[in-house]
């Protein structure tokens, strides 16, 4: 019963502080698809996620999210923001963070699940256990989050975004602080969730290579515009040249990695620090 089409933007434009960030952006995402959002720093990738959540209004065009205007169905969207400030000195356990993702917005106080008559509390605790198992984080979810490695932490946060069983999961640079194997295993996990649960995954990333084998679709932001389509169509010399307006070359390394050359700014599709 997943929505056929989870996301649709038509000639949309967004502005921040009076400055148009991007315009004339059209894309559709179907249920259960794995989509990467690419582009240089400041191109407006995070802004796209924020418009989908209704946090940034569109200045032109139309958007439909899960069959409603942006912001109306946010309870069905799991969102992992960029740059998460979790203080390592504050000792909060992963399970508690995930549980807050489930019902943290509700008024009241969290009552322990062992209290007699607390049936909703027990059901919620079970849900939290299930989602932690789904992302393979059960083994360390009871440790303080500040003591976890970057990859372990990211899995717990993905569990938090998934705990309400969303139809759309949006992650803003979830692979950022991970080493290459860490990136691959989180990417594989996301693809598994995408395939087995039918959740559409929209993932912002700097380096498309670790997730390239899993992708259904790519949205590439540059020069105030965006291009959407199949990965091999978008990450191609001709398409990117048209988007940037300057000659761009996409090279394929012998191991299958893509390297974009000739961008006006530093290379973004492949970031050498991960090599």
């Amino acid at each position, binding site marked *: 019963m997943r929505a056929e089409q989870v996301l649709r933007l038509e000639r949309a434009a967004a502005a921040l502080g009076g400055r148009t960030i991007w315009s004339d952006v059209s894309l559709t995402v179907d249920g259960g698809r794995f989509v990467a959002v690419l582009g240089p720093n400041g191109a407006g990738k995070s802004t796209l996620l924020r418009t989908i959540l209704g946090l940034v209004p569109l200045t032109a065009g139309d958007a439909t999210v899960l069959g409603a205007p942006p912001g109306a169905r946010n309870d069905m969207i799991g969102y992992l923001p960029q740059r998460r*400030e979790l203080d390592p000195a504050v000792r909060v356990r992963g399970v508690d*963070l995930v549980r*807050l993702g489930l019902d*943290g917005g509700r008024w009241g*106080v969290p009552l322990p699940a062992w209290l007699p008559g607390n049936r909703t509390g027990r059901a919620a605790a079970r849900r939290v256990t299930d989602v932690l198992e789904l992302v393979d984080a059960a*083994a360390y979810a009871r440790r303080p989050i500040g003591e976890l490695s970057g990859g372990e932490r990211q899995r717990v946060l993905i569990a938090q975004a998934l705990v309400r069983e969303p139809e759309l999961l949006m992650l803003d640079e979830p692979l950022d602080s991970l*080493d290459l194997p860490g990136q691959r295993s989180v990417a594989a996990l996301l693809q598994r969730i995408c395939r087995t649960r039918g959740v559409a995954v929209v993932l912002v990333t700097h380096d498309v290579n670790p997730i390239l084998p899993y992708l259904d679709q790519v949205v590439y932001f540059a020069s105030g515009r965006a291009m959407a389509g199949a990965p091999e169509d978008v990450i191609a010399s001709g398409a990117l040249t048209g988007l940037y307006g300057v000659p761009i070359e996409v090279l394929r390394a012998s191991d299958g990695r893509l390297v974009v050359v000739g961008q006006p700014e530093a290379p973004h599709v492949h970031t050498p620090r991960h090599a």
Partner: protein
Amino acid sequence: MPEPVAAATLDIPGRVRELFTYHFMVNALAAGTAVAVMAAIVGWFVVVRRQVFAGHTLSLVAFPGAAGAALAGLPAASGYYAACGLGAVALAPASRSGPSRGAETAAIGTVQAFALGCGFLFASLYHGLLGGVAALLFGSFVGIDDGQVLTLFAVAALAIALIGIAGRPLLFASLDPEGAAAAGVPVRALGAAFLLLLALAVAATAQITGALLVFTLLVTPAATAQALTSRPVAGMLVAVALALIVTWLGLAFAYFSPWPVGFWITSLSFGFFVLARVWRARRARSACGTSPTRRLMLPPGPPKRRRRRTREGGA
């Protein structure tokens, strides 16, 4: 101060009974109980939200408030509430979580010194102050009247009710502001409301511990609880238990000894804090190297990038 009757013997039940024979002592214990429960719960959030500095500022503003009220012929308690409330309103825009904290702390530190100076002036202009400057700064347990006790109970009930209503979203906003904002929790509004609640708690606590020793009930039990458990509800309960123990024992010791209540409460809660930190440090050491699950969960690859960020700063 009345002559301790059972002081010469070690007759504990007799001594406890003696504590309750004097009205001023009953008032002190009742007021201390209300304050301890409220301060521990609010303080737990203060520690988690890293707003210790804001709490410190509010407690210093409380001093000129109380001294000024006395000078104006008003009850000192009204001065505490008014000054802390105003302080919270003034702090609200500055305490918005953000990277530009450094500049603000300098400005706030300047205001703190100024507040202490004003308080000292008011206190020296007014000589009839019960217990004098020392009582306002370091606490006193004599002279808490019935009305004050009732007010403290009402304030504590209000604070606990507010936490009961907004505890969960406040917890979410405190532990994980970005995640909470993404889930639609009004993080900003909750932050401002919490600052007012903190002002209320500080004003109430200062009446027992004095302006300078507010932290002994507000922050120390909560920080001790944080060292003992990372579960939110359990942590709050531990903090409340610790605050009650140090308040009751501190008042009793102060009654039977020549040393002031502020000293007893601070040293007791400091003692618990040190014990908890030692316990945690030893546990961390004994747990070190015996984590096979963690090994298995890590993806294969260069382990150097695993960031070690254990016990930075602490609290």
